[in-house]
């Protein structure tokens, strides 16, 4: 999808005479149609972390290699989003873990066998491949050298080394299937246990400040830092075996997908994750799976400027389209509302009520609707609704503010109602209408963050994850560009004012 042209800025002075506002609206209608175009190929979804991206790419490539058109919607969100998207038919397949299925999707407290899971999913009309071959669960890791020197291979072996220093993530310390039950189950004797940030923990492990830490078993860092995963010999950690979930697909697609079963062990997956994180090129990492020679040259990776550009463009796309819709719908509604009466009241009332619906609730309302679902459409629809009020209200009040003598003058001339509107009333109200549009534009830029809630991207991505992690720097990665965008819009509209507000009104 291309960058929307939110509002065409022309330098052509003659544009002034060319019924500017109406023109603007008409110009932009075709752009809006793009949004509703829907896709035919098999759609693979993935969650918002490296491994899921890579698995999604692998699936896409596997389908393509089998001659099946497939696309990959990267990093759509968390478990619930993906599961709903699968149920709603927005995606056809996505990579998942057995442990997650049991706990978050089927919500059983028990450890389910693979067969149990398969049967339970079948009731939802969802099928599952056999495990891909690796298990991505919590694990304890050590420096390889240290482990070999001391002869530690399994977690039970740790019992003989009470002097080892543990550095565990806060989450692992807190989790009720984390440190406490683990240390009871294995009767670990270590006294020195500190809480430490995950990334810092690797540094601490490297410089010997700690000896053992927790990790996901396919974490790229394991390979990068030359660590070993200690075997969970008492099978304490639940299984998180990677599989693909899928719904109705063509037999060919299913076969292609199932060809991946049992082909990826931990070591290989770790390696792919390493390559993906190094190059930030998930397709490249996925290609490595299919054979060393086949990987395309690694790109420069997604640098910060690149990510920023991606977020910003998407943000503009979201805010731009929704603004466009709000203008196309809002100005006519404002025109009707300017006449007052019950209909006018109703329109303003509707726009007001919409404004009070909390964004999460609005999304919750829209997501179940088939046309919307987990998609950019939903985000745009929500933003559109939030952008309506200022435009409708300012259009109405701007029209009402036109002096009676001039309204009568237009009537007496014999101009038809539509011409009157286009040639006289709208241009005369243009300052007020544009003021409403500007307010809407800024509100939309602010609110477009909500799109990240349903995985529609934009600058809300860093903001939301920053808020979740309580990480100010990450928040600012999204908030500062959003603020700059608002300033840009402000400036852009000031230019636009000069084009759209007739000169005769600015003397």
């Amino acid at each position, binding site marked *: 999808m291309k960058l929307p042209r939110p509002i065409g800025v022309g330098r052509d002075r003659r544009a002034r*005479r060319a019924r500017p506002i109406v023109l603007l609206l008409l110009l932009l209608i075709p752009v809006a149609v793009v949004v509703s175009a829907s896709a035919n190929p098999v759609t693979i979804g993935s969650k918002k972390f490296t491994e899921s991206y890579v698995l999604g790419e692998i699936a896409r490539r596997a389908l393509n290699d089998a001659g099946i058109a497939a696309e990959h919607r990267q990093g759509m969100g968390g478990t619930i989003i993906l599961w709903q998207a699968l149920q709603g038919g927005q995606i056809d397949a996505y990579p998942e873990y057995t442990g997650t299925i049991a706990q978050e999707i089927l919500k059983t407290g028990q450890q389910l066998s693979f067969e149990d899971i398969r049967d339970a999913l079948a009731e939802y009309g969802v099928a599952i491949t056999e495990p891909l071959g690796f298990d991505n669960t919590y694990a304890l890791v050590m420096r390889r050298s240290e482990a070999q020197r001391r002869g530690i291979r399994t977690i039970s072996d740790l019992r003989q080394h009470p002097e080892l220093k543990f550095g565990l993530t806060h989450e692992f310390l807190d989790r009720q299937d984390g440190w406490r039950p683990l240390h009871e189950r294995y009767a670990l004797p270590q006294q020195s246990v500190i809480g430490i940030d995950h990334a810092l923990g690797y540094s601490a492990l490297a410089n010997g400040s700690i000896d053992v830490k927790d990790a996901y078993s396919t974490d790229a860092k394991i390979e990068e830092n030359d660590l070993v995963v200690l075997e969970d010999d008492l099978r304490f950690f639940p299984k998180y075996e990677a599989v693909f979930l899928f719904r109705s697909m063509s037999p060919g697609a299913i076969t292609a997908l199932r060809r991946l079963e049992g082909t990826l062990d931990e070591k290989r997956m770790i390696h792919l994750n390493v390559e993906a994180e190094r190059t930030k090129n998930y397709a490249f990492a996925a290609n490595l799976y299919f054979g060393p020679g086949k990987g395309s040259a690694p790109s420069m990776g997604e640098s910060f400027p690149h990510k920023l550009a991606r977020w910003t463009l998407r943000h503009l796309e979201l805010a731009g389209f929704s603004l466009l819709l709000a203008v196309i719908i809002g100005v006519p509604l404002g025109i009707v509302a300017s006449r007052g009466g019950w209909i006018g009241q109703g329109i303003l009332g509707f726009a007001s009520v919409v404004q009070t619906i909390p964004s999460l609730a609005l999304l919750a309302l829209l997501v179940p609707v088939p046309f919307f679902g987990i998609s950019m459409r939903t985000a745009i629809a929500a933003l559109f609704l939030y952008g309506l009020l200022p435009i409708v209200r300012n259009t109405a009040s701007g029209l009402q503010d036109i002096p009676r*003598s*001039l309204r*009568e*003058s*237009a*009537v*007496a*001339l*014999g*101009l*038809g109602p539509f*011409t009157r509107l286009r*040639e*006289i009333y709208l*241009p*005369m109200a243009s300052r007020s209408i544009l003021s409403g549009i500007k307010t809407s534009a800024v509100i939309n830029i602010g609110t477009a963050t909500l799109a990240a809630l349903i995985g529609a991207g934009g600058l809300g991505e860093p903001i939301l994850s920053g808020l979740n992690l309580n990480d100010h720097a990450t928040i600012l990665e999204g908030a500062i560009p959003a603020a700059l965008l608002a300033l840009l819009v402000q400036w852009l509209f000031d230019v636009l004012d000069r084009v759209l507000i*007739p*000169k*005769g*009104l600015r*003397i």
Partner: protein
Amino acid sequence: MSALVKLIDVIKRYADVTALDSTNLSIERGNTTVLIGPSGCGKSTLLRLIVRLIEPDSGSIEFNDETITSDTIAKLRRRIGYVIQEGGLFPHLTARANVLLMARHIGKAQDEMQNRLVELCDLTRFSVDLLSRYPLELSGGQRQRVGLMRALMLSPELLLLDEPLGALDPLVRASLQKDLKGIFAQLRQTVLFVTHDLAEAIYFGDKIVLMNDGRVVQKGSIADLRENPSEPFVAEFINAQRGVLLT
């Protein structure tokens, strides 16, 4: 001579004011009818009723022997040229755009419009250079002439002129009066002309209608009004204007 517009028992009230009291009037085809009377007597109201900017409270108005209704007026308005007392120029359009508005709208040919525009500028002694100015950049008299050009642009069947020359200097006014009168005679133009200048009224008026306080007091030629005043007010009004030579 047949009436183009006929007012039949028209009454118009604003809240407590009766702006126009049961009025009968016919505006004859091909004639110039001049409407005079004290300020606030209802002259503008009468014009606004004809173009249906306001609805009469009772009575009816006929155009070409058909009663004007809110439905039929839309089309009729294009056959009427109306110079509003206070200009009514659109501030966001240049003088040219104001004049050409309707012509462009009904799709007149470009050069036809251009010719007519030059003709009108000539008539009103309006400099063509000023056409690209916005109303706020024109003097009072210049604006008034733009309003007049706008009304004349489409050569309407009926001209309603509400003090169209009030803000013009004697020089322009005199020659404009002469030219307008010539054109009116030549085209057999039907005109309803409101003025406060008795000399102008006499010069234009085939028929003069004197109103007072919402009523038509007397109609006829200036001679009728001077010689057979229907009430003392008529004589008083006719003799009021300072320095006017009643030829």
